[in-house]
């Protein structure tokens, strides 16, 4: 390890923005740095990650950036495995500037080819047994890391009655929710997903909103924590992100927009309660897309009416990218909900 590489700890420290009198947003520059640092620290302490060992992960998102920053600062070689359909040239260039090797697996179906990526990753691990896989999908370190966020929330907000957050790996919402509910047992947890993500029982399909939902089920998703599930389409998420920037000066990515949309609605329904919402990353990566009028104008059906209320589903089903739906999950296991459908 080089110097104590803490100079970018501020990137994992959220700014707390009050979006309504009873609504606090934890707006992260790069939330995934919190679990990435925790997982690497633990692996270094236990000896599982040896100095200079090769780190591998399958990711196309911000967890890759977080591991790349840490790997560069701590002198670990890093390989990130992604799919050809998910390549973001500018993001890849930033990762490569941090000396990360980005491998794009062929993806003829356009579904992210997680199976192919895992196969490649497992081969790498077999060829090089000293290498270390950060395993953000099922490492306990992912959710345990979010005690840091709860610490920040309770120091600055005190009691919290509702928690709203996106689900991708399950780490941030389930970690924050697990800890926060131990402190405040009456806490209600609202999960935010997107149409055609399989996490909460929808059939898998092409998702327009990147960074939210999943086509496989990570072990870190704990359904039995969740009181209510919301599926937000790409368009209301974009509109909500635009509103966050325009009205609050908070410049975030579209997944944060989806979380804010649900959180504002929850806060408006529960006057006397305090709501906290997790917003995982900034808008800069999306400057050419969701913050670009020309790009937006090419979207089919854009502009569309911004939904002010979610449609309540009695049966779980996918909806249009302009829709926002929700379903009372009631802290059930996934199997139990699917059986009841």
């Amino acid at each position, binding site marked *: 390890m080089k110097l104590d590489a803490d100079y970018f700890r501020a990137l994992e420290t959220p700014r707390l923005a009050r979006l309504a009198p009873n609504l606090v947003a934890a707006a992260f520059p790069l939330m995934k740095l919190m679990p990435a640092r925790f997982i690497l*620290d*633990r692996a270094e302490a236990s000896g599982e990650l040896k100095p200079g060992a090769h780190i591998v992960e399958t990711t196309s998102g911000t967890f890759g950036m977080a591991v790349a920053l840490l790997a560069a600062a701590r002198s670990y070689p890093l390989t990130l495995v992604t799919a050809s359909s998910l390549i973001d040239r500018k993001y890849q260039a930033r990762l490569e500037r941090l000396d990360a090797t980005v491998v794009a697996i062929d993806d003829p179906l356009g579904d992210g080819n997680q199976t192919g990526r895992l196969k490649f990753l497992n081969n790498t691990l077999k060829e090089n047994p000293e290498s270390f896989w950060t395993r953000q999908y099922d490492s*306990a370190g992912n959710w*345990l890391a979010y*005690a*840091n966020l*709860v*610490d*920040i929330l*309770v*120091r*600055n907000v*005190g*009691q919290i009655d509702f928690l709203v957050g996106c689900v991708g790996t399950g780490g941030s919402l389930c970690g924050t929710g697990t*800890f926060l509910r*131990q*402190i*405040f047992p009456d806490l209600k947890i609202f999960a935010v997903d997107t149409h055609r993500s399989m996490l909460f029982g929808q059939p898998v399909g092409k998702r327009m909103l990147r960074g939210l939902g999943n086509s496989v089920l990570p072990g870190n998703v704990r359904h039995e924590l969740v009181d209510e599930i919301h599926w937000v389409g790409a368009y209301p998420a974009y509109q909500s992100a635009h509103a966050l920037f325009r009205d609050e000066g908070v410049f975030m990515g579209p997944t944060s927009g989806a979380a804010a949309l649900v959180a504002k609605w929850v806060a408006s329904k529960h006057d006397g309660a305090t709501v906290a919402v997790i917003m995982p990353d900034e808008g800069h990566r999306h400057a050419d897309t969701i913050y670009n009028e020309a790009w937006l104008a090419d979207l089919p059906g854009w502009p569309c009416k911004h939904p002010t209320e979610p449609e309540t589903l009695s049966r779980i089903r996918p909806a249009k990218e302009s829709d926002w739906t929700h379903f009372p999950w009631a802290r059930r296991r996934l199997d139990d909900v699917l059986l009841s459908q």
Partner: protein
Amino acid sequence: MVETGNLDSTVATRKPAFRAGKGHAIAHHGELLQGVFEDDAGRLHRGLMTLPLDRIRSVATFKITETARIKALPPDRTKAETAARLTLEHIDRSHTGGDLVIKSAIPVGHGYGSSTADVVSSIRAVADAHDVKLRRSSICRLAVAAEGASDAIPYEDQAVLFAHREGVVIEHFGGALPPLLVVGFKAHNGTPIDTLGLQPARYGSEEIQLFRILRGLASRSIRFQDPYLLGRVATVSAQISLRHLPKSRLDVALQIARQHHACGVQVAHSGSLVGVLLDAAQRDAWTKALDLAQTIRDAGFKDVEIHSVNTEEALENET
């Protein structure tokens, strides 16, 4: 003889041969929080937040003698004797000795901190006899050196997170505890526990992460003088402690606390004491405490008492 508990007093006119000092130390009612806590460098420290009880005290007197020998009374207070010796070394008077007499009203073996109180009152008495004012941090370090672990009672009502095996403050919460009424009683039918025979708890990753949050919540509760948040800290810490030192029927106490809208439940993490915490600033606080005490008695718990922490009544009684 110096006036009670006044460490600042300088009595320069006393005849050296008869110089004596007096020191006191308060008891406690176990802890509001106990666990392991990370410092800025990522190292873990065992630490605790003491719930002070200032009505029960240990009082020590120390009379300087010219021979380098310390005689303690009662003679079984060997840790207090060690503390007196270490204090003389600390203030550079190790060529002198003295007669140390300890009178304590603190019950032994339940988690009231009787042993630390004797050690701390002795340290203060020795310093007082030599007209030296010790900082709280020095008293804590000396106490840990004398008995291996200490608690935060030298800080009295000031809320600190204290590394009890190192004798240093991990975090000053920046103020006093909010006013509380503690309805205290003893688990295990009041059978005393050999606190020094207990193995230190080994905490898991999730517990260590939870302690980080409890520390944050404790800080918030002191900053905003919120007894309810402090009660949550205590309750969760008590629940964690159950995994390491089981207390019979704590679930009953937790249920009674909920039914009575108490702030929470705290325990002595190495003792039999349990306390239900009430907001002393609320209307009819004492009536509520008496009612709660009766319910706890009716549930079959022993030695039910009401203590006040940082309340105005307590201050009036002291003066």
